[in-house]
């Protein structure tokens, strides 16, 4: 069976297959809710398929009309789904994971920087190691490797290990060649932390003054299950004012990072979604690094693990005790 046949086969057992389909231009893919076999023919799953579909799962599962739900996921997306399973926010028995070996995701900011004309392109396609863009009557050949998201370049897990298939979850693998694993780690954060504290403070002051409070970062986040009840738009509790204030914008990012402490899988959706290009993911990365240092824990690796901030140890190995 080829991949299309595999997906059609899965759809026989599921009421919907969450996938990617053609986007508004040849460089983009959009979410596709495939319900009929012929929908599967439209599926796009190359480097253009960037968005994590995990964010759609919790509300979709709430619908009683849905039977089983299949979702197309890269290994990084699987971690988000596992994190949702950890918190029992989606039912494992109704889920079918369709995992594709990952070749990386395009970073549109890089593409636009290399080829501003791509704003109004005529055609775009992947040809071997290159991304080919036809625009303005010219053709650009961009080396694919240089156009990928930094997280993908460093991704240690482009192929999903069997051990990471959530317990009790039906998982179907698609054929394909994954890129070679990167070394993981927190390189972007480490580089940022090379700056002086004053520089970091000034950085956020500048970056957050560009924030337009659109909350795309939150809406793209697979772990932001509060949805309409996010504290950002509540008056009770009233954590944030309605003012156009840098303080409140930064505080929201802190709230987001804190709410994700021990839950964020580092999928990078928040940064990708930001229309202003603010690297808000850095804050979550710092949180992930702290959680890993303190609790030896990474979210979304084990569907049975309890997130570290929802539990405790009487004696904490890595926290120096105070007092007495």
């Amino acid at each position: 069976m080829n991949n299309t046949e595999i997906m059609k086969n899965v759809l026989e057992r599921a009421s919907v297959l969450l996938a990617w389909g053609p986007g508004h231009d040849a460089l983009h893919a959009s979410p596709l809710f495939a319900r009929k076999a012929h929908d599967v023919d439209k599926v796009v799953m190359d480097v253009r398929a960037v968005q994590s579909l995990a964010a759609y799962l919790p509300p979709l599962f709430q619908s009683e009309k849905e039977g089983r739900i299949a979702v197309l996921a890269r290994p990084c997306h699987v971690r988000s789904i596992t994190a949702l399973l950890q918190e029992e926010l989606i039912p494992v028995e109704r889920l079918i994971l369709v995992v594709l070996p990952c070749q990386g995701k395009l970073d549109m900011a890089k593409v636009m920087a290399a080829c501003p004309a791509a704003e109004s392109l005529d055609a775009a396609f992947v040809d071997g190691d290159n991304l080919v863009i036809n625009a303005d009557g010219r053709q650009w050949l961009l080396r694919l490797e240089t156009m990928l998201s930094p997280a993908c370049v460093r991704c240690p897990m482009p192929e999903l290990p069997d051990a990471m298939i959530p317990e009790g979850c039906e998982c179907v693998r698609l054929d394909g060649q994954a890129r070679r694993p990167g070394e993981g780690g927190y390189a972007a954060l480490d580089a940022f932390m090379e700056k002086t504290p004053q520089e970091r403070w000034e950085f956020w002051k500048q970056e957050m003054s560009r924030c337009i409070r659109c909350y795309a970062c939150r809406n793209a986040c697979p772990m932001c299950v509060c949805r309409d009840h996010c504290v950002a738009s509540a008056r009770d509790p009233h954590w944030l004012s309605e003012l156009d204030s840098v303080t409140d914008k930064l505080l929201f990012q802190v709230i987001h990072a804190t709410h994700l402490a021990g839950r964020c899988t580092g999928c990078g959706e928040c940064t990708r979604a930001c229309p202003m290009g603010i690297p808000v993911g850095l804050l979550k990365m710092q949180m992930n690094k702290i959680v890993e240092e303190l609790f030896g824990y990474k979210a979304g690796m084990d569907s049975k693990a309890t997130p570290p901030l929802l539990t405790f140890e009487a004696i904490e190995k890595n926290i120096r005790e105070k007092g007495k």
Partner: protein
Amino acid sequence: MPILERRIIGFLCNWCSYGGADAAGVSRFTQPTDLRVVRLPCTGRMNPIFVVKALLAGADGVLVSGCHPKDCHYSEGNYYARRRLEVIKRFLPVLGIEPLRFEYTWVSAAEAKRWQEVVTAFTEQIHALPPVPRLPDDTGIERLLRELENSPLPICGCHAGHE
């Protein structure tokens, strides 16, 4: 005379550290006057975001103190607090905020002397730092609006009934 105080907010659990601070008062243990205390039922009530909220709002220092581990009035509150507060302390540097601006510790209701030492040391620690840096927008019209919002009258109809 210029005010030589810094703005320090303490979040104290009612059962241990608030009692310890009371006991320090009863014993007339002299302490710096900078600290203002918010009384919480338990450090488990302490949302770590309050720390950042206070620092961004202009507090020069935040001190959280509760019962020693194992002695929580509610059994487990300080265990949760310990994880959350340690995480937020380590988070501050990425924002460019000096992590010494925030400390958390444990002081029992019997430890009046220790409370005096904790307050004195923390106040000195904050005085050794410059005033907390502020983001530029918290002046002028915004502040006026905030004051208005604090007024008993609704600012406008659209806010009434809004959650």
